[in-house]
């Protein structure tokens, strides 16, 4: 489908704004609807659009699968890491109060980081899922 100029031009123009919108949703989850999951899916959908239009190989070139795997775990590690940090600071797992100078700022930092971890994992898992499904080579049958 990349031969079709309309689709190609449109994808090229939309790619960056979609990712920006995803990041906007990511960081404004505190104020309105949105947050890690939704943002992750939106960012992933930009990559998926790119892969659909330009082909899976181009998509993997843009976003190599080992980087994908690394970021996929990094999200979980960030989330867990925030919890463990608060544990080392003498509170329970995932109690953000101790992360900042005041409980409220601690909560802010904690929620921001945690949502970022969620977004990272979700977006990378979605991209990985899409790549795995679209690039599936059937063995026998079919």
């Amino acid at each position: 489908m990349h031969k079709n100029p309309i689709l190609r031009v449109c994808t090229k123009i939309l790619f960056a704004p979609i990712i920006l919108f995803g990041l906007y949703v990511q960081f404004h989850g505190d104020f309105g609807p949105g947050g890690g999951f939704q943002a992750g899916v939106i960012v992933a959908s930009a990559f998926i659009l790119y892969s659909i239009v330009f082909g899976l190989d181009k998509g993997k070139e843009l976003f190599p699968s080992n980087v994908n795997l690394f970021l996929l775990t990094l999200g979980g590690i960030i989330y867990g890491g925030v919890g463990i940090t608060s544990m080392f600071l003498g509170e329970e797992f995932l109690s953000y109060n101790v992360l900042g100078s005041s409980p409220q700022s601690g909560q802010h930092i904690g929620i921001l980081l945690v949502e970022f971890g969620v977004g990272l994992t979700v977006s990378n898992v979605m991209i990985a899922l899409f790549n795995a499904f679209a690039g599936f080579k059937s063995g026998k049958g079919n």
Partner: protein
Amino acid sequence: MYLAALIACGISGILILVRIILGKTTFDRILAINSLGTIIVLGIALHGFYSGRPEFLDIAIVYALINFIGTIAVLKLFSTGSLGDIQK
């Protein structure tokens, strides 16, 4: 006023749904579902105004986005037989 607009959306939504269920070719269905998406985007925006909290328009944008990508994906599936490769 908003309610009237919502009702209009509802009516045309039903009509489009009829087309989706009747639809002869798959292209008809894709077209109809794309229109349904647009109607729902409008419905979301209108409902925000109707219920007095119009600041949640992000959902409508996401909706439009997902609608677009979904349609492109279906069409890609039809043109090449899979979402991955780029035949032709």
